[in-house]
């Protein structure tokens, strides 16, 4: 047996003799590994951003929201009909839920459904009454100014905290004195005391994203608007009566969140009957579903990449077999000079493994490049984890071992006599 160092040097030397052939041979592995890396990067990136969004909602939360039930039996023809339409979550629901086991806290939102105008243009901003705990229960941060104080709630002060998207939608560019200025909404004026930013732009169903909200203390909202809002649909004027739009329920024990959410929905089903005027989202469940679909995605993509690696490996085996035939004289001479079968076997095996591993390294570069291109042109986030790179190296090395063993075995089995006699 040769010294390991000599064996390595010799094998590498042989490959460098045929640079173009070595490159072409390892193309299969290069693209195979490249696709593995790119696939894992895209999948990991998608997973992380989705997870971050879901996690921003909070895995210990159950979000219950009101939604307008589908119209039933209302004739569209009855013009100028004024109907009081009542639906959604009520104060009684809130009081009941808050007393349930494992429920620690309920934060509520109430959309007062007023048109927020900029000049005479209607914006998609919403004026929302919220509880004090709303900031803490969402992953939002105070960007400027401050959050409400308990006194603001107690005294029903006319102040508001705005989401960061509100600023460009209501004010001219470059205004810096937002905090302290006033917003007029219909006949009321609110002094802005702070700007908040929710990095993941968490959305609360029909109420919309947190960054698009103009928040006022719930007592202020109740004092000023009660729970009646008007809406105009075509020529119909409807009066809506909605007490709450969103409950954010925080549970004490995350392990029992499943149970708690079932109890809440059982309760709501009982009280609301057949009226489909509420919905529920459990971020933790979303998270689990998300992980499941992501895993399936990864498996499917992984198999495709795996197939390309197998194809690449077969290509390498093919060329190595031709290589063995072409180098019969070299093998015979080496054997005559005293090379063991194992020396020949290892020489060819190392050549193949070296070929696939360097193909793997090049493939990692290709994969990172593909990932970068994807990020640049489609905006999908890509994440290169260390384990995906390590995995690719191990796989490319394994491809070499798996597809190199047979050619190397063939090389070692060459009979030196026939080779030397062939001259």
């Amino acid at each position, binding site marked *: 047996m040769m*010294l390991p160092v*000599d064996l390595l040097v010799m094998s590498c030397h042989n490959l460098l003799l045929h640079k173009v052939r070595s490159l072409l041979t390892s193309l299969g592995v290069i693209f195979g590994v490249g696709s593995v890396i790119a696939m894992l990067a895209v999948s990991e990136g998608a997973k992380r951003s989705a997870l971050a969004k879901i996690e921003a909602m909070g895995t210990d939360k159950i979000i219950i929201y009101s939604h307008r039930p589908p119209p039933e039996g209302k004739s569209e023809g009855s013009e100028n009909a004024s109907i009081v339409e009542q639906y959604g979550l009520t104060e009684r629901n809130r009081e009941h839920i808050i007393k349930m086991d494992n429920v620690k806290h309920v934060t509520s939102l109430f959309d007062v459904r007023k048109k927020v105008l900029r000049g005479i243009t209607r914006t998609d901003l919403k004026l929302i009454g919220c509880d004090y705990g709303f900031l803490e229960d969402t992953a939002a941060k105070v960007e400027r100014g401050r959050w409400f104080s308990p006194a603001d709630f107690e005294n029903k002060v006319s102040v508001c905290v705005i989401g960061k998207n509100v600023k460009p939608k209501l004010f001219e560019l470059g205004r810096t004195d937002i905090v302290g200025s006033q917003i007029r909404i219909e006949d009321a004026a609110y002094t802005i005391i702070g700007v908040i930013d929710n990095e993941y732009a968490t959305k609360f169903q029909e109420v919309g994203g947190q960054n698009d909200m103009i928040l006022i203390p719930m007592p202020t909202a109740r004092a000023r608007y009660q729970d009646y809002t008007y809406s105009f649909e075509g020529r119909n004027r409807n009066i809506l009566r909605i007490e709450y739009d969103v409950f954010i329920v925080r549970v004490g024990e995350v392990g029992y969140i499943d149970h708690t959410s079932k109890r809440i929905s059982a309760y709501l089903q009982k009280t609301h009957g057949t009226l489909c005027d509420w919905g529920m989202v459990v971020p933790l469940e979303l998270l689990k579903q998300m992980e499941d679909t992501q895993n399936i995605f990864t498996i499917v993509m992984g198999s495709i990449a795996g197939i390309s690696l197998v194809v690449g490996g077969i290509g390498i085996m093919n060329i190595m077999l031709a290589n063995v035939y072409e180098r019969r004289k070299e093998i015979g*001479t*080496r*054997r*005559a000079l*005293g090379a*063991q079968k194992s020396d020949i076997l290892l020489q060819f095996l190392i050549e193949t493994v070296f070929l696939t591993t360097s193909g793997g390294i090049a493939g990692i570069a290709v994969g990172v490049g593909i990932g970068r291109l994807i990020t640049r042109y489609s905006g999908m986030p890509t994440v290169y984890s260390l384990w995906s790179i390590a995995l690719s190296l191990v796989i490319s090395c394994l491809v070499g071992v798996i597809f190199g063993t047979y050619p190397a075995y063939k090389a070692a089995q060459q009979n030196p*006599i026939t080779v030397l006699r062939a*001259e």
Partner: protein
Amino acid sequence: MAPVVNIVELRGICKTYISGDLQVPVLKGIDAKVGAGEFVGFIGTSGSGKSTLLNILGMLDVPTGGSYLLEGVDVSCLSDSEQATIRNRKIGFIFQSFNLFPHLSVEQNIAVPMLYARVPGRVRRARSLELAKRVGLGHRLGHRPTQLSGGECQRVAIARALSNQPAFILADEPTGNLDENTSNEIMALFHELNNNGVTIVMVTHNPALAPHYDKIIRLRDGRIDDRPFEWEGGKK
């Protein structure tokens, strides 16, 4: 027991190839001895069993009968791995078409058998240089075989054969691919090595080389031909 052991001793070597039901005897009992420091020529026409004997002498093949003693040790039934080790340490191969590695330099070519003997790199380089000088190629260490003439290539092969200080050198038609002048130079080099104590076994079909040998063993139809040599050619 005599203190001097024969380097090679063949006792009734037989080799029969079996193809299907047919048995083809190629060697039919060869007895031969090569003493230390001898220059022995095995001469035979094609079909005389010369190549088969060469393979057996070179440990590339095993005889079906008889025994082969190498430095007094019976090596006729060894495993493939043991054969390789003996080829590496005890036998210096020289081929008709040199069989150099075209992508290796002269120095690296000379060092190949030492690679398989696990000789460390530093020692290999020193010894390659010494051997290259010995065959008159000290100035060509970095050259590739393609940059050398046929005679120079065979010199490299001779240096390579000597690299593990083998018991004997086994040369297969070493001058077969060379012109007459170069041939003579190479034969002169063999004589020089032989004078310095290297045992050489040469296998050839060429009777013209006969005067170079200390001892001539002629093969004919798988047996040793005992008739006097002059009978066959007698040109020189």
